[in-house]
């Protein structure tokens, strides 16, 4: 598929633990178009972060292992590259923003040095050039008096400001893809709103593709164009953002939407909770991984794991049943 800049096919990642082999990602396939913002939603342990770390080959190995799959970036498979080739891609063409800006910045190096490092490494800038560019980048992400702050250490910045520094660092080499792993989860809502506004502006100015991982459906609604919902290491629903919220099909997606109170709620409705717990998979299930928690589960759900099936334009869902009509697919 030539229109995808990133084309992931059948990715599988496992972790060896004392209790057995945990299947964290079980055959995930998706494409990312140029300049597109793709939201990935799921609860903790659903495999959303592991999928992205696998693509960038940042899974600690052992215990982690990328067991299967391909990840074609502009036609080249990231998973079969040498480490040296991978280093030229990471940070330069695909970069990542992590969840916790305090632990992902080096506390004993100044912000300036940390910003200059990728510029000198990937773009071959001299220290002076890099210094100038670093100040520009800080200004671009809305840090006042950027030039004077290059000599500051991470602890001299607030949480929101640190996340801005992380964003500046991720964008420093003008990557084609930015992967953001829950970048606003650790922040307060008013600061989260600032960061989301910043990302929207930078996306319009720079035109990079973004993969935004989050557990917050509200954040996805305001930012993404297309959404993948993950559960138990599988993609269980995939749709354009308006379609997903207007016409959710998978019982898990329905459950997630029902369990969120809305600030614009009218009257008092009881929340729809999903009973039970997310699974830890010690073997690839031959049944639907959501079946144990599913209100609509029928016999077939326990016998066969449903593949993603098209239910509309660009809308695919992994469920044997159309839950609104009660008919089999």
């Amino acid at each position, binding site marked *: 598929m030539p229109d995808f800049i990133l084309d992931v096919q059948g990715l599988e990642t496992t972790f060896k633990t004392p209790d057995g082999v945990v299947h964290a990602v079980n055959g995930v396939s998706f494409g990312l178009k140029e300049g597109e913002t793709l939201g990935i939603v799921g609860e903790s342990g659903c495999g959303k972060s592991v999928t992205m770390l696998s693509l960038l080959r940042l899974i600690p190995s052992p215990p982690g292992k990328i067991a299967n799959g391909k990840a074609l970036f502009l036609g080249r498979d990231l998973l079969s590259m040498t480490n040296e080739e991978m280093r030229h891609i990471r940070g330069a063409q695909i970069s990542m923003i992590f969840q916790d800006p305090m632990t992902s910045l080096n506390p004993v190096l100044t912000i300036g040095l940390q910003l200059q490092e990728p510029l000198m490494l990937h773009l071959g800038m001299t220290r002076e050039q890099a210094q100038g560019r670093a100040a520009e980048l800080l200004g671009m992400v809305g840090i006042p008096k950027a030039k004077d702050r290059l000599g500051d250490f991470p602890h001299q910045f607030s949480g929101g400001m640190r996340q801005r520094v992380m964003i500046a660092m991720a964008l420093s080499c003008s990557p084609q893809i930015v992967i953001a792993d829950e970048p606003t989860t650790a922040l307060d809502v*008013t600061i989260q709103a*600032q960061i989301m506004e910043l990302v929207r502006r930078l996306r319009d100015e720079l035109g990079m593709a973004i993969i935004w991982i989050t557990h917050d459906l509200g954040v996805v609604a305001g930012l993404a164009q297309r959404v993948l919902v993950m559960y138990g290491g599988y993609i269980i629903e995939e749709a354009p953002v308006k379609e997903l919220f207007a016409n959710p099909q998978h019982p898990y997606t329905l459950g997630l939407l029902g369990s969120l*109170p809305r600030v614009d709620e009218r009257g008092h409705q009881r929340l729809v909770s999903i009973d039970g717990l997310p699974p830890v998979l010690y073997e690839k299930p031959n049944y639907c991984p959501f079946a144990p928690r599913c209100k609509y589960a029928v016999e077939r759900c326990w016998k066969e794991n449903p593949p993603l099936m098209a239910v509309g334009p660009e809308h695919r869902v992994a469920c044997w049943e159309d839950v609104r009509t009660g008919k089999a697919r």
Partner: protein
Amino acid sequence: MTEANNGALLRVENLVKHFPITQGIIIQKQVGAVHAVDGISFDVHQGETLGLVGESGCGKSTTGRTVLQLFRPTSGSVHFDGVDLVNLKGEDLRKMRRKMQMIFQDPYASLNPRMTVGEIIGEPLTVHKVASQREINDRVASLLELVGLSAAFSTRYPHEFSGGQRQRIGVARALALQPSFIVCDEPISALDVSIQAQVVNLLEDLQKQFNLTYLFIAHDISMVRHISNRIAVMYLGVIVELADRDELYLKPLHPYTQALLSAVPIPDPIADAKRARIILTGDVPSPVNPPSGCRFRTRCPIAQDVCSQSRPEFRELRPGHFVACFFAERFL
């Protein structure tokens, strides 16, 4: 808040809690104070849920703990059921504590890993010497079933449970002494979305069943709006607005509340795109050295000179709707 004690189970007046900052190792002298809570007043009525919402560091958890006298207030008064808690000590305070319990934020840190679930839930009964061991066992079993767990779990240890189940254990412990008032300090923020709804539904069911009164502390204004009857919004140690849940959402009178409401993402792309966004600039100032006058003036879009000179009075602008802003009238 001038009405007589009609229905107010808890009355907090001008509550202040400062934490001293000291310098020196042997001879310590105080060099400043963290103004965690700086003069707040509110009532909690019998059977209602009062939501306390604000961003991290605004003093909402300190308020919860100071109300229960887990921290002793610097000044101000807390009346529970007509009794002034601030001046109570020793056995008298312990007796009052039976009626007021707390559910903590972190279900991993708030349960002793070396005690069985039965011991954890039964401990309040043992400490307050209100039941024999046999009665305790029966009571633990019925409490476990009440919160949706199996009575057979009483011999297990906390590590055998998931976050949501642990929080249910925390709820059972809080209910053991049949309190009338529970402070819920961010009881769901450590849990996954689908589990949050389970715990919130449980809290609502228990409230109906036992006519409980909650002070529900959280940073998530959509969840607070869902569970509360009235909401108090805190910013940097003060309550800036207090109103009925629908009134607060439909007619927010304080610029901070307006910004907070507009910053909450709505899980609906069409409704979300239609909203006007108020993006605040800057960060929350340090509570060690809070701004003079109105605490919010450094980030406020409508701040004027007067805001730095004196503190706006917390006044009732509409029936039951209190706000601390000089210019709130313009939003009426």
